[in-house]
């Protein structure tokens, strides 16, 4: 019984979502985030540990998972911190965190600056068969930047974050992954140079994977100056918004059209393994401020599918590639089987308008408010079977303590 206007897909898996609970419940809760995920077709989401307190102890992992089980909505997997309190000073108890159910480790938003500590995290992760998910950013180089450093930041007079701030971190992380043999996952790559570095590292055989966000695939730094044309659209045909809308402020920043094209090429040739939302909901008080004062982040779970379908429609990648990057790609990264009961019915051509009221997430911080998009998930079936680890993750030696 198939409708020609629909596509069946396994449930989407998001490697990177911020659920904000505990600590920032005014921005999102596990329950609202997990329901927003279902709205966007994500039946499994990985919760980033930069909460308050940060998820850096086995008890906190267990608490997160039990709250998620009670909340309903998407299946929530726990990412634990790499370092205690995300302070980058000493490793968290990684073996015990894994035993408590963490599927990966990340200090997302606070890159581990000490390369020796990062090396040791990779060595532990390799032994555990788990991922270290790194937000690649050289903080000294990105400094006080609030958008991509380029011609647009020069015109707007906003401090920029150069592409090199990401690329030097990617290069360092790849060198350390080569040394440690460990499972490095680079999240939300945003520059052409980063994609090329990962492409070469993969060719060399380094155990690395990476993801890209829907907003980095669809938007450019001109959005900060008010453009609302997707990368594949003619900017002259799309009405502009005022400049300096803080909903366009995100880290890593929206980059140039050349970067966006390179991300799509990386997706199409398999360099990029997954599309992850970096869903970053914020309360309006964190966004309704001056651009340089505003929090970084875009609420992304519910608009991911239509954004990437836009690129498919433009011919930048096939539907198979995009759906793979939302399903089998992230499953392979995590080393899990696709949950067999999670099924979606996608209507790629269905038009709908993004509104604050219509978004399930408490985070209304998206530059897409008011925009009519094409593509939605019509039906979601979610199996409640326990997720089984499919052998070891990529490059893993063993799964200890499980």
């Amino acid at each position, binding site marked *: 019984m198939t409708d020609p206007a629909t596509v069946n897909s396994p449930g989407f898996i998001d490697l990177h979502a911020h659920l904000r609970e505990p600590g920032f419940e005014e921005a999102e809760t596990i329950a609202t985030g997990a329901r927003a995920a279902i709205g966007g077709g994500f039946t499994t989401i990985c919760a980033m540990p930069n909460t308050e307190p940060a998820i850096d102890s086995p008890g906190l992992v267990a608490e997160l998972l039990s709250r998620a089980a009670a909340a309903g909505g998407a299946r929530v997997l726990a990412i634990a911190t790499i370092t205690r309190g995300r302070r980058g000073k000493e490793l968290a108890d990684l073996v015990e965190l894994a035993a408590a159910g963490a599927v990966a480790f990340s200090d997302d938003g606070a890159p581990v600056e000490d390369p020796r500590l990062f090396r040791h995290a990779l060595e532990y992760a390799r032994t555990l068969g788990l991922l270290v998910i790194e937000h690649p950013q050289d903080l000294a180089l990105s400094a006080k930047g609030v958008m991509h*450093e*380029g*011609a647009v*930041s*020069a*015109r*707007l*007079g*906003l*401090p*920029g974050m*150069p592409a090199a701030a990401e690329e030097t971190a990617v290069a360092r992380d790849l060198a350390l992954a080569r040394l440690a043999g460990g499972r490095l996952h680079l999240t939300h790559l945003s520059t052409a140079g980063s994609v090329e570095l990962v492409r070469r590292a993969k060719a060399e055989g380094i155990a690395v994977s990476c993801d890209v966000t829907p907003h980095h695939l669809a938007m450019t730094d001109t959005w900060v100056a008010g453009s609302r044309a997707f990368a594949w659209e003619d900017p002259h045909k799309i009405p502009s918004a*005022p*400049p*300096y809308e803080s909903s366009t402020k995100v880290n890593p920043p929206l980059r140039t059209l050349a970067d966006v094209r390179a991300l799509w090429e990386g997706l199409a040739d398999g360099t990029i393994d997954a599309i992850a939302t970096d869903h970053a909901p914020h309360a309006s*008080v964190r966004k*309704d*401020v*001056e*651009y*340089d*004062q505003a929090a970084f982040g875009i609420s992304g779970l519910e608009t991911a599918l239509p954004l990437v379908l836009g690129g498919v429609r433009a011919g930048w990648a096939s539907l198979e590639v995009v759906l793979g990057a939302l399903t089998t790609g992230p499953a392979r990264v995590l080393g899990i089987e696709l949950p067999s009961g999670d099924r979606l019915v996608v209507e790629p051509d269905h038009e709908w308008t993004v509104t604050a009221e219509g978004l399930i997430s408490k985070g209304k911080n998206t530059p897409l408010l008011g925009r009519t998009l094409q593509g939605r998930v019509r039906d979601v079936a979610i199996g409640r079977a326990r997720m089984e680890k499919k052998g070891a993750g990529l490059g893993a030696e063993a799964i200890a303590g499980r």
Partner: protein
Amino acid sequence: MTAKWTRRHVLDTDDWSREEIEIVLGQTDAMLEILSRPIRRAPPLRGRTVILFFAEASTRTRVSFELAAKALSADVTNITASGSSVEKGESLYDTVRTLQALGGDVVVMRHGSSGAPYFVAERTDAAVINAGDGWHAHPSQGLLDAFTLRGALGDLAGKRIVIVGDVLHSRVARSDINTLVPLGARITLSGPPTLIPTAWRCGDLPPGTSYEPDVDRALDGADGAIVLRLQRERQESGLLPSLREYSRVWGLSEARLVRMRPNAPVMHPGPMNEGVEIDAAVAHGSRSLIEKQVTNGVAVRMALLYLLAAGAPLDDRP
């Protein structure tokens, strides 16, 4: 003049047509006439309220706008950083609600964050004039520099103006470019590589501009120079080896002055660091238009206030 004034706000001149710039410069002439009268006051803004909202320290620009508003008989209220709640941690959002409740006709604002005037303009009924936001824009400075240069040089078509110094952090440089280029001038930017936006140094420059790191070559045959203020903290943050080196390599000295065309004028938005970016002898010399800039500044700001406030009929206001 055939063009019509349709602007609700003056936030940036980057999307202004030449005609719009000409309207303001034409009005400025009329305002200078008012300022030359024995009693420097005219009634057109009687009953209107101008709120000066300066969230960043500024004496010169604030006083200039205040004199401009008073010369047009407007009521003037100040919300300064020291006396207001900005320093107490009140958000810009809260301040905007207060501004809205106060019901001013025009809000003149100075703010440390690029883009802040857009935030205010979207959330109030008042007309907003950007009196300087972060590194972004200072439209009245750009307009007064254009007016002053035209007074010295006549038509700016084909004239080459050098802007030297900390272009990266300069809202004055951006507004000068946005105002002078539509009037036909060409701009040569000069300064240390660390103080020029990377994109502009690497060839992706705004139309009508070029970059020449060697200030001597930049000044050769130029029709005028605008010297930018150098903040001393640029050295502390590692962008400059030393102020002494900066002064020797990029400072505007009398020896450099002669490289320009005879009588080519020198301008500076103030306040100056004499002996750093400009020698005292140049700042106070015969080719300096720096005091003229201050006088013209009041007239340009009168023109902007008049265009924004007087155009709207009183009874439209709640």
